[in-house]
């Protein structure tokens, strides 16, 4: 008898808890739904954006495959001619420099993160955040130290790349990336690491209490640019 009572009570409590959980879930779902479906137009737009994003991604995959095929064809066509073979190599090397091919090599990884200290205790809360100008300066110093390829949160920097602040995120190559910023650079590690020298920009950032970390590595992979470089206004005149 006692056992039965116990079971009943346990069951009762479980049922109650479960019902409560389900109610909460249903409520949150309904809550989000109500804000989302406020505007029919917006929903349509959202679907459209997702559709184009997917189409872009699919096309991009096809493009990558086509480019690999092109490279194979080019190699096939040029392998019997020394002169052409050297031009083929120039094309490959050139694409690596521009950012249209993945590259690996030794270098450094610099990580910049927003300060963990309390914003209310600082005189100027803005000092605790990584800004686009900070990233721009670090990139410029890396280039000065001889970096041959650079990426920020895996966004490869190409000749047309810009870095802009958009609220609490930064836009690179038109893609939004948020802190922490992981900057990869390939070059002579010892020279690139000079970035953390006294008076260097990383030191200045550290004094501004932004999180700064620099790691040397012998094997860094930097992905290719996920866009297209094309010209609408400029014409080659050589």
């Amino acid at each position: 008898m006692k056992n039965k009572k116990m079971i009943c009570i346990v069951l009762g409590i479980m049922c109650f808890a479960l019902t409560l959980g389900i109610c909460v879930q249903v409520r949150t779902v309904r809550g989000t739904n109500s804000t989302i479906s406020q505007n029919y137009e917006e929903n349509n737009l959202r679907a459209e954006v997702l559709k184009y994003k997917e189409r872009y991604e699919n096309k991009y995959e096809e493009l990558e495959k086509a480019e690999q095929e092109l490279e194979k064809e080019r190699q096939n066509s040029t392998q019997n001619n020394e002169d052409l073979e050297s031009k083929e190599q120039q094309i490959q090397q050139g694409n690596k420099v521009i950012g249209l091919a993945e590259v690996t090599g030794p270098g450094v990884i610099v990580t910049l993160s927003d300060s963990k200290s309390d914003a209310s205790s600082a005189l100027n809360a803005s000092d605790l955040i990584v800004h686009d100008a900070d990233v721009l300066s670090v990139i410029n110093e890396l280039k000065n130290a001889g970096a041959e390829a650079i990426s920020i949160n895996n966004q490869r920097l190409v000749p047309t790349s810009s870095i802009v602040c958009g609220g609490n995120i930064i836009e690179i190559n038109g893609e939004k990336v948020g802190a922490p910023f992981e900057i990869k650079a390939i070059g002579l590690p010892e020279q690139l690491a000079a970035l953390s020298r006294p008076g260097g920009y990383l030191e200045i950032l550290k004094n501004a209490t932004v999180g700064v970390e620099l790691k040397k590595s012998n094997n860094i992979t930097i992905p290719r640019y996920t866009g297209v470089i094309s010209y609408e206004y400029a014409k080659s005149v050589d």
Partner: protein
Amino acid sequence: MKKLNIKKGKITMTITIGIACFVLVLVMFMQFKIVNETDITSIENMRETELRTELANWKSKYDEVNAQYEETQSKIEEYKQTKESNEETEKLVDEELETVNMNLGKTDVEGEGIEIILKETDNEEISQINADDLLVIVNALKLAGAEAISINDERIINMSDIVNINANTDDLFVRINGQRILAPYVIKAIGNQTYLESELLGNGGYVDQLRTIGHDVSIEKKDNIKILKYNDEITTKYIQ
């Protein structure tokens, strides 16, 4: 007999409860997974105008990639067709190399764009234009879609740096691509004239800011600007 019955009932009950619990936990995990997978933060919170720019952005990106894809396909076809002839293959390879060299900044380019001239200031209360200012302007021009940029005929390529030498002294000068650059700084950029100009002059534009503190900066739209190629050899030692 009765004792056995109770025991049997207990066992069935335990099993039933166990199964029920298992199913519930399963459902819960599924729910969590679904909630995790839906990327609520980025797209669901956007407003209409934001969505419209986002849509236009993805559309143009798609068009670009599509055009590039078709070009690549046609190149593959051409290579296949010219397999037998060395001469035609050479023409194709040369064409591709030409594009690569243009991307690298190893060819002179021409087109419409703007020319910005920053003069040395006589005002001793404000600091002279230095590398930091030029860096910001170059970044703004790239944002506005500049296809080629040079400062005092030093072409800005992917590996170009713009730095102050002898910072905090009177001998400060600017170095670009390892070359010493002196004022007045003439920045040339090829691209859409309106975009380029409004990026610098618009609300909070950098040239506006410089003018406000007293610098002499001029911007001129030009229909035909020639930007010289990068003059040095582009060498790499570490990327593979």
